[in-house]
């Protein structure tokens, strides 16, 4: 495997863990940042042959990449190969003018800012450290550092979030005129501390929450944003503000993931670095690859994933080559129900179909 043009780098550090989060994170280990980044650089060196000489996209995700010690972060950025798009995830409270400048100087082209909400009581439920003003301040600092592609993350369906709360969050977000927005419904994962605390409340709210997704799409498209992926929106105009790195996932491209817990999809295999900071660092300090689990991907699985991912986008999916993955009777049935449309070897979801994308996909798959 070689010539992979998309790279994901995982920086797991956080000031503390938010109750709803289920990513691989690591809290309170500032002293370890340097060693971890060294390990990342070492893993990159081991995997260098997998990558094309020049990349299309790099994504630094976390954790909170911008919580990483600035020196270590700078060292990592220096070590990365050149890429057309380099996105860094950031938490508002970490975004100092210095950090913004550092990111810009070190080649970051895009920042994804985890705003989540603009209302103190909701931020508190989510256990976020930033206050609404921190979000705005961080946003302006990024603009001041000449970032012309800034994305905001919003979460809706938060316990206690009224319909009016949702409108206010959207108002605040739109007022900043971000280039891109990711809006996720809160997922209360079974077994998390969050679900333990708020599960019952969410269940009671379920009926009210049902319309929030529609409302988010309505508001953002009315404001001129393109609903280009189930949960993602971008400003329209002369420039394409879609997240190129994520588009690679949704289009079924190969990608390399570095860092603890990171996943790579390379041809007929998906591999996942096992979580656990210490053993990741230890392996690379010994000059070995980190411990991994491998999942073989046969053509059929990749075809199913192609359908599942492709239907998240607002562009028609070319089905030529994936016919086996589709249940033809279901395709017809869904078309009759006005949920999908087919034309010239492509399949697309209607607007209603996109709101029901999960169920539609489950039905479409053979």
């Amino acid at each position: 495997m070689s010539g992979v043009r998309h790279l994901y780098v995982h920086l797991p550090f956080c000031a503390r863990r938010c109750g709803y989060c289920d990513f691989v994170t690591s809290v309170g280990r500032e002293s370890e940042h340097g060693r971890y980044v060294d390990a990342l650089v070492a893993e990159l060196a081991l995997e260098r042959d997998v990558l094309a000489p020049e990349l299309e996209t790099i994504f630094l995700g976390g954790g909170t990449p911008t919580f990483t010690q600035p020196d270590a972060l700078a060292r990592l950025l220096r070590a990365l190969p050149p890429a057309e798009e380099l996105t860094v995830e950031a938490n508002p409270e970490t975004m100092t003018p210095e950090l913004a400048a550092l990111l810009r100087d070190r080649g970051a082209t895009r920042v994804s800012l985890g705003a989540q909400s603009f209302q103190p009581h909701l931020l508190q439920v989510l256990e976020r450290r930033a206050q609404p003003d921190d979000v705005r301040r961080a946003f302006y600092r990024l603009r001041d550092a000449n970032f012309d592609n800034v994305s905001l993350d919003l979460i809706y369906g938060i316990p206690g979030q009224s319909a009016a709360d949702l409108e206010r969050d959207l108002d605040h977000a739109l007022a900043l005129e971000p280039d891109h927005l990711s809006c996720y419904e809160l997922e209360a994962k079974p077994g998390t501390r969050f679900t333990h605390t708020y599960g019952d409340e969410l269940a009671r709210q379920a009926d009210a929450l049902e319309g929030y997704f529609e409302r988010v799409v309505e508001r953002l498209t009315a404001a001129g944003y393109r609903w280009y992926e189930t949960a993602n929106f971008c400003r329209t105009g002369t420039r394409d503000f879609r997240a190129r790195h994520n588009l690679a996932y949704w289009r079924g491209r190969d990608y390399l993931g570095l860092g603890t817990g990171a996943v790579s999809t390379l041809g007929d295999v998906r591999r996942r670095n096992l979580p656990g900071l210490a053993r990741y660092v230890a392996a690379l300090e010994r000059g070995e690859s980190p411990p991994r689990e491998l999942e073989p991907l046969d053509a059929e699985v990749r075809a199913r994933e192609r359908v599942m991912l492709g239907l998240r986008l607002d562009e028609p999916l070319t089905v030529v080559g994936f016919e086996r993955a589709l249940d033809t009777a279901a395709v017809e049935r869904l078309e009759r129900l006005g949920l999908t449309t087919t034309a010239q070897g492509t399949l697309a979801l209607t607007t209603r179909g996109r709101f029901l994308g999960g169920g539609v996909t489950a039905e479409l798959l053979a």
Partner: protein
Amino acid sequence: MPLDRIRNFSIIAHIDHGKSTLADRILELTHAVSSREMRAQLLDSMDLERERGITIKAQAVRVLWRDHQLNLIDTPGHVDFTYEVSRSLQACEGALLVVDAAQGIEAQTLANAYLALENNLEIIPVVNKIDLPQADPDGAAAQLAELLGVDAADVLRISAKTGQGVEDVLDAVVARIPAPSGEPDASARALIFDSSYDQYRGVVAFVRVVDGAFATREPLRAMALGTRFEAQELGFFAPAMRAAPTLAAGEVGYVITGLKDVSELRVGDTITSEHRSASEALPGYKDVKPMVFAGLFPTDSDAYPELRDALEKLKLNDAALMYEPETSNALGFGFRCGFLGLLHMEIVRERLEREFDLDLLVTAPNVAYRVKEKNGDWIEVHNPAEFPAEVEDVEEPYVRASIILPKEHVGAIMELNNERRGRFDHLEYLSTERVHLTYELPLAEIVLDYYDQLKSRSRGYASFDYDLVGFRPGELVRVDVLVGGEPVDALSLIVHREFAYTRGKMLVDKLREEIPRQMFDVAIQAAIGSRVIARETVKARRKDVLAKCYGGDITRKRKLIEKQKAGKKRMKQVGAVEVPQEAFLAVLNLGDTKQ
């Protein structure tokens, strides 16, 4: 054994009045089994019987008492099996009628006593459980004496549990029950009063020899069906099977026929010898007709062949069970089964689930209906789905229900019977405290949880028995349930016109709760013909998406979708609507708890 040294008898009793305990004590006392090998309630051989405390299959045990051969023929103890009791009684000359000293006469005591009288049996009244602190032996004895028109002094008083008085019972059997009448030298004739199937030895017939004698290896013939076979082994139960060279007039025992198909031998038929053939068969039994029907479907449609095999095997030992293939658009392939009653249905269902490890969906039970079609033809309908849309006339089976209960509950039970379209027939005081009520009720009203209602409204004190009295006209309609415009055949029901709306509304409400929201609105309707009587809507889902999906969790999201897909595959498709199996189950369970 000469005829005058033989006594053939049964024990008949209301459930839990101690029939099985008395049988055990008799076996112990006559050394048929030692106390060491004594299992409590030895005659009830099936686990299920032991658990439910009832006897399903009749068996016959031979014991010796003071130079006499006593054949104890066991009888089933539940209303559904009246017909089997009647069969067993035909093989006897006498019966012990056992009554609990604390309870007195109950509904089945009456039913059994009448059966014994109809069969001209000598009845020995026995009051059992006199050792109980709350026992009232005098009261129970007085009731028995009154019922049978005998002197209270002739009523035996025993405790089968402690053994007190059981020797007197055996002496009374010898002294009071007549010896069998029969011609030892005539052509051999034996009545088949029951049969069973052994997978190695084939059909085993339980017989009462009336005339002549049979010998091992003798060529035999079943007179009504003409089936020829050889007596591979003759014998009796003591209580284990014990081979004997001959079975002679008056005796009770078994014949191993070697026949592999249970339909080749019919209970009630007469066996005779090919060499010395009798010219006339013994009076047989009337055919029993199932009156309660339900669809049985495997929850996993792949289990259909297993269900078919299991029913075949059950049928070998249960002549009353009927079944025929049924196809339902909602439940797939299954069988429409006919039962003697609700308990019979429950037993069959439990045996299928327990002995054959099948997961079953059972539709709400219904009765047999006689329907006069527009063209004037009468047909019998066993399945609501086959009930014609347009009918000239409908008749449904009625029963005469006999209920015995303490007087303070009479009001509540009369109210229950009125709700169930009952017609009051008769009320009689058995004592100052106890009342005998008779009602005529549609059988359909009894198959829907009547017994539970009776028990709960009488705080458990009412006892109940019934007899079919024939078909009567009824204002009956078929209510269909439609999901997304498609009729769900398994949920069709036949109800009295007056109850159609309430029942239809209940079904529709329940289904609305049970059917998950789909990607479109789903109408749920109850209709009589084309007239909709109740309607609800399951509103379409507004969203169903996986919030986010990036490189790190594609596998997990794919698995979620695949799981969702697998869930859809388990659903039953009604038109475009996916209905989980559990929805049908919930609605069918509703059928048990009317109102």
